């Protein structure tokens, strides 16, 4: 097991290195002269030169890259052009905001979607199943920002049940208020992810329901309900857990559209600002950290999957 984890972490580091290279090169070849953008069109050529020198843009790419990566690894994430503040101080709070949204959304999405999938599978081919499947799919094809706008119009403006902003105005909002503000964006995300997660759950449950061991359980004399609880769910939810884990980075890594619509100061909002302002240090690091989040959660998903499935666990230990 340990060997498996070490191997997986090694692979993750390799992937992250490649990601960092791609991120670095892409931002480097972005069109437009950064100095001009930052200093303004009217600045003198000398000023450009001094600025470029100061920021290190006159150095070869290799040096620029190693300087950036070296900084990231030692905790120095650079200084934002735009805010003239350490990148870490900008991204830290934003990441925490994004994480809050992701947690609330996940707590709402995971149980509802899994339950939907189980109900659909147990009523395979019946009306309930079709309603859940078609409904879930229909909801998923509508982008989250459209849902966001619809939800704001209905619950925020018309009914006034929920605030239109995801971020409380108060100085030090308490946890209830914070969560309350995050419910509408979470529902928008639920609409997008429900179809996907419930379908995976449904497929897993159906496979387990049709399995020989389920037949054994029923023929042992277990009631259908008990058999489903004891023998089907654990096996059926394995793939679902992995799928949910892979969706976490999508939720935590900055939901640009949702954060914009709900005016939420999370990772996605910062990212978008950084692109528009050509704030390279901020952009590079933000994108790279998104990659880190995705890969870390993929790693967690893999390990979870291995721990829950004795067959894989054993293969891994051997």
């Amino acid at each position: 097991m340990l060997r498996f984890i070490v191997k997986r972490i090694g692979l993750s580091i390799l992937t992250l290195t490649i990601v960092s290279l791609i991120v670095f090169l892409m931002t480097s070849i972005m069109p437009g002269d950064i100095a001009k953008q930052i200093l303004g069109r009217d600045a003198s050529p000398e000023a450009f030169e001094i600025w470029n020198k100061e920021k290190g843009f006159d150095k070869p790419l290799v040096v620029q890259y190693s300087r950036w990566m070296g900084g990231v690894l030692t905790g120095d994430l650079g200084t934002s052009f735009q805010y003239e503040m350490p990148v870490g101080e900008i991204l830290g709070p934003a990441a925490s905001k994004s994480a809050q949204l992701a947690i609330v959304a996940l707590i709402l999405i995971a149980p509802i979607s899994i339950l939907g999938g189980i109900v659909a599978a147990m009523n395979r081919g019946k009306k309930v199943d079709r309603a859940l499947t078609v409904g879930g799919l229909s909801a998923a094809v509508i982008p989250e920002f459209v849902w966001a706008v619809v939800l704001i119009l209905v619950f925020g403006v018309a009914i006034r049940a929920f605030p239109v902003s995801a971020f409380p105005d108060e100085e030090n909002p308490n946890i209830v208020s914070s969560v309350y503000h995050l419910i509408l964006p979470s529902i928008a995300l639920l609409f997008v992810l429900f179809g996907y997660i419930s379908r995976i759950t449904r497929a897993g449950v159906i496979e387990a329901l049709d399995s020989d061991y389920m037949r054994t359980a029923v023929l042992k004399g277990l009631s259908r309900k008990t058999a489903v609880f004891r023998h089907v769910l654990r096996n059926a939810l394995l793939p679902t857990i992995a799928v949910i884990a892979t969706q976490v980075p999508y939720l935590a890594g900055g939901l640009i559209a949702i954060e914009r619509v709900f005016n939420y100061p999370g990772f996605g909002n910062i990212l978008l600002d950084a692109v528009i302002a050509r704030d390279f240090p901020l952009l590079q690091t933000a994108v790279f950290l998104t990659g880190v989040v995705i890969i870390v959660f993929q790693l967690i998903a893999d390990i979870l999957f291995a721990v829950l499935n004795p067959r894989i666990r054993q293969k891994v230990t051997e």
Partner: protein
Amino acid sequence: MNTTPTLELRNLEVAYTVRGIDRQVLRDVSFAIAPGEAYGLVGESGCGKSTAAFAAMRYLPRNGKITKGSILFEGQDIVDINEDAVAKLRRSAISMVYQNPATALNPTIRIGKQIAEVFELNGVSSSDAMMMAEQALTRVQIADPARVLRRYAHQLSGGMAQRVVIAMALASNPRLLVMDEPTTGLDATVEAEVLDLVRELRRDTGTAVLFISHNLGVIRNMCDRVGVLYAGALVEQGATSDLFSNPSHPYTVGLLRCIPRGGLHKSTDRLDTIPGTPPALGLKFDGCVFAARCALADDKCRTQLPQMVTINGAHVARCFHSDKASSLPRSVEQIEYAPQVTGHSTKVGDALLNISHLSKVFTQDGHKVRVINDVSLTLGVGETLGLVGESGSGKTTIAKLLLGLTPPEEGGVVTLDGKGLAKTLNRRDVADVGAMQIVFQNPDQALNRRHSVTRIVGRAVERLRKFSLADAIARAHELLSGMRVEASLHSVRPVQLSGGLKQRVAISRAFAGAPQLVVCDEPTSALDVSVQAAILNLLVDLQKQDKTSFIFISHDLGVVRYISDRIAVLYLGRVVEFGTSQRVFSGPFHPYTEALLSSVPNIDGSTRKRIPLTGSVPSPSNPPSGCVLNPRCPRKAGSGYETLCETEEPNLNEVEPGHFMRCHIPMAKLKQLQS
């Protein structure tokens, strides 16, 4: 006799709804099983055996329903009782053992908990239940039950998994045990152990058993009475010995004649087949269900439904001509096959294949595992070499090495017709590839399902014989027709063919390159006995005409004995005995061969003492010291060679001309021990 039967099916009819139409799968089936009795149901696939078994458990697929008749358990009709009552019956009175023990166990729950669950259902506390689970495992004679409790299903061998399933089934002390093909897919030695266990448990518990099997030998050895099912109808029933000694329905007669039973050999006996194919699911009949395939059928058979007639006491058959059944005309198919035009002009018996010092080492998690250990064999033109041994003995690996699908270790040489073959397939030229071909166990997976039959065979002809496309297609049609794949089927895809026809296509493909040697890896294991007989006949005919040699791999010793001229017995990647078929099967035997042979349930009913192999096959990554068989050897103890057996690996010695054996015990001593 006034006791209530444990199970009674009365005029039972079951239908499956397929595409909105009810298709009848059981037709007016009636039989009864007395307390303590073992009742066997036999028949080929699709005849309704498993449906009858699951109906007795009140467990039919979602589209299945009981349309008529009743199922009485101890006198009480269970057709209409509710789910709770059914669950209660299953908890306390009826249990089942399944065909696939490995998948019947939950992969994510420890064995102990799965067995304990049965006790808990019956109100035992969970700590007591775990203790009782251990006792249940002890009862099925599993080694180290405490450890097995903590294992998961995938950590068990097939035989152990089946013991666990049996332990689980017996946990509730059932009055009826339904066993659906409980030993199919297990090695002969493991099968024999499981059957011994079932017999013992039956003696101890007096449980009534409904035993389903396609294997007539197993049924004969296990059951008091037998019912024969065909197309969902019970066509014959009687005490096992009566039915086997005097089969009175043409279908039963045909089934028994298909089997390559003891002593038959291709050189003198041709196997019978049952002409035609079983009827499609749910077909309606005016007369006898078997009429279309019966050589005795007349107009009456086709228009009137025959009733059960009494043959002798309780022995009954549903046939108008039961008195003539034993004189059923023999049905032997002949092939119409144009001989291959090839340059080979060697004569039968000349050396064709020479394998010398073949070894194969796999690396598994950093450990070297020697799966094939210094195998040397020879085979003549037009001869068949049978490879036998338990699973894991290396049969299939040898086939792969020969075909160049995996390269042998340094020093291993394969010579075909005097020419050394390259180690890997991609380094062999087209002629060499065409000269050695393979037929797999499962034609479903071996044939490209997107290609037509003509294309599958034609492409092989085009590649291997360098024919033009038109010539290749013509030759493909010739081959296929010769193998009795009708012209109307040449343009269809494999999925539209039955298992037997698919295997004929696979054989046609293997013969596309006019091969000198064809490796047949369990070619008939997935087929029904009547189809198996037809395929074996086909292979024998091909061999006679083309002087083709075969390497025949099978776990069915009857089949191997029938078709082989030479036999190599493998154990743990080593040849332990090699010689002519006649020598190997007549003894004195290598102790391993002896144990293998004695584990085969005999269809002629002769009882023979089983020579058990104790324990399970050791891992090739850690073979025992000395002779690899010594920890399990039935003849080591008392032979006087114990120390030698445990310290030194014996060589493969020529014990008599052409007969090789890897054993320290001399022939004379073996002969004495085995007499």
